[in-house]
């Protein structure tokens, strides 16, 4: 087990690389979930305009 984590003496480089990958992915997942929650909150407390979004849609093609 210790041999595995030692990575033949390259432990610092290997685990800094893999560790950053895990850290960034976890942070992105947390951030994007928080953004979804904020967006649902915003949508809940927005005045509803029947038929479309609040923004101008006149030039919309689809």
């Amino acid at each position, binding site marked *: 087990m210790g041999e595995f984590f030692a*990575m033949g*003496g390259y432990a610092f*480089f290997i685990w800094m*690389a893999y560790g950053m*990958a895990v850290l960034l992915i976890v942070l992105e997942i947390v951030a994007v979930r928080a953004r979804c929650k904020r967006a649902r909150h915003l949508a809940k407390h927005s005045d509803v*305009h029947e038929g479309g979004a*609040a923004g*101008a849609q006149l030039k919309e093609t*689809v």
Partner: protein
Amino acid sequence: MSGFKYAAPAQFYSLAGKMVPWFAVLAAILAVIGLAIGLYVAPIDVTQKDSYRIIFIHVPAAWMSMFLYVVMAFWGAMALGLNTRLSAMMAQSIAPTGALMTALALWTGALWGKPTWGTYWAWDARMTSELILLFLYLGIIALRNAIDDPRRADKACSVLALVGVVNVPIIYYSVNWWNTLHQGATIKMGKASIDDIMLAGLLVMVFAFWFYSIAVTLVRLRAIILEREAGAAWVARLAEVKEER
């Protein structure tokens, strides 16, 4: 126009919601297999010993950083040419994940460069053009945040993304055009200069990164659709919006 059915944000919102769990689960399974191969099953490299194992993060991240940029620029072009809102939202959704992949490619590259080349960083063509890619992603994100009107932000970001796409072939061919520090491609059509099990682990990790990117950009796209469609009747009728406090 049945082919454009899912081009409308309202339809795509629910479709994306159904797609996310599949891509997320696939990404997780492939990541576990890829990590097991990359860190344990694959033998050590003759010249680089265990340090080469960074390849299983570095190459997928670097490929995704370029691929996501092209996809983002494609949706930007669609948004400009067809004036479709969903295309612009897709481009908007990809930028942060693209920036993450680029940062990860640079970080892991530096950590691989030190034990193999003796330096964390050099102003080599491949590394410099990848750094420019990071600045392009960050510039596009900053540009959007600087413009209040979303439709104007869509146009500005699409133009910047399209101008910046010229950087992608420069990154890709840099190792052939300039003979500097970064090595040439390990995997070419028809032959790879690495062992089969190493190649298998690498491809599994590439697919894991790919499916992760799809899953996370679809989740972000759903958030963007809600942000920009807030006030629409269909959004107000969504169960998850009604249940939100």
